[in-house]
């Protein structure tokens, strides 16, 4: 064994210290950055209080974080960001009342969207009894979209519930949505378009008796 000169050891030690000082910020940055840091401190505080409340209540917190980030990305003012996050939180509490807690994240968020688009809690709760392990997401997404496109809420919720109770599958809901969307784009009244398309379901759906397929798949869902 030999002992290096004190000059060499000091050089190595200083080099290590410099590396540590220079790379620590990068190391911190390499970790998952705190996404809520994009919010201003007051807004962040309020959002975190809401998130903590959600955690205590046992409803998902990620949709709340994402809503805050969406508001920040859209340069919404702080008041609107907090209102949007609070609205999602309250809707989650309502969803739990209507559908229970045994939902995946997509079902939570699609149910929240349905409530926010004006679907009453009692209508949403009708999906609970027939849930039976079948994913709700597609039905709720289509119902929400139809309402957004101008179909009266009562007609949209009634039609989707009807399909749901007849055992429609994801592809059936997608076919209905695509057909109604095309009818609306071609100038038809949204409510009439839905009523016309829903008549194509004479009875209980079976694998051989489905809504006619849409003419083309959406551009954004190729795999």
């Amino acid at each position, binding site marked *: 064994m030999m002992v290096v000169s004190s000059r060499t050891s000091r050089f190595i030690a200083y080099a290590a210290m410099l590396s540590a000082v220079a790379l620590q910020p990068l190391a911190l940055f390499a970790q998952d950055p705190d996404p809520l840091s994009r919010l201003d401190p007051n807004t962040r505080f309020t959002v975190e209080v809401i998130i903590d409340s959600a955690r205590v209540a046992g409803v998902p917190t990620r949709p709340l974080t994402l809503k805050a980030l969406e508001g920040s990305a*859209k340069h919404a003012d702080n008041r609107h960001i907090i209102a949007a996050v609070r609205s999602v939180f309250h809707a989650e509490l309502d969803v739990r009342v209507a559908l229970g807690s045994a939902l995946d994240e997509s079902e939570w968020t699609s149910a929240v969207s349905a409530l926010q688009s004006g679907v009453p809690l009692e209508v949403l709760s009708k999906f609970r009894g027939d849930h039976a392990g079948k994913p709700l997401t597609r039905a709720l997404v289509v119902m929400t979209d139809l309402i957004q496109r101008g179909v009266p809420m009562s007609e949209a919720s009634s039609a989707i519930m009807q399909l749901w109770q007849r055992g429609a599958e994801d592809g059936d809901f997608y076919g209905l949505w695509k057909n109604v969307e095309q009818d609306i784009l071609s100038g038809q009244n949204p409510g009439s378009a839905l009523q016309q398309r829903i008549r194509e379901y004479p009875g209980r759906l079976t694998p051989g008796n489905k809504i006619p397929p849409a003419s083309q798949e959406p551009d954004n869902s190729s795999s």
Partner: protein
Amino acid sequence: MTEQDAYVAWMAREAKRPVAVDPMAVERVMARVRLEPRPRRRGAGWRWLVEPRALPLSPALGAALAAGLVGIGAFLGHMQNDRGGQNPAGRSPTVAPQPPLASHDTIIKFVLVAPHAATVSVVGDFNDWDAQATPMKRTPTGGTWSVAIPLRPGRHVYAFVVNGANGGTQWVADPTAPLAPEDGLGAPNSVVLVGGSAS
């Protein structure tokens, strides 16, 4: 006094006797030495590298060295992730960063026709609503913008951010996808469902 004692006494006297030394003697010797060719020490550098030695480091310096190594590792890991991830660091204006593809992910292609746009990006819950994270690429032939990214199964909310040539920015919902409800944040969103029978 024996003969040996006399010899010792003589040595002692001789040792104490001052000797007159030529002051230039040392210089002359060193000059001769410098003229001699220096023997080459082969492999000295290699020996310096491989010979074991003890580094007298204090605990504080040892901790600093460890922190430096951790920093280097984290930085390299970050760079590796960034090469195919949605990480905002090292953003490229032309190449869309892609998150690593998990076994259950599905590649989803987003397309928007925006012939007058300067840049277009897709932003949504899958990239934490970071408008810089997923830029789209213009097709060589026209004003169609597209990007393909892996998404986890489930419902995803997104929108397009279109930057015009005049510097204006507009959020646009996907005209080919279902709409999400208005939520008071000032711009519409679209919904894509990944997985299932109709995604």
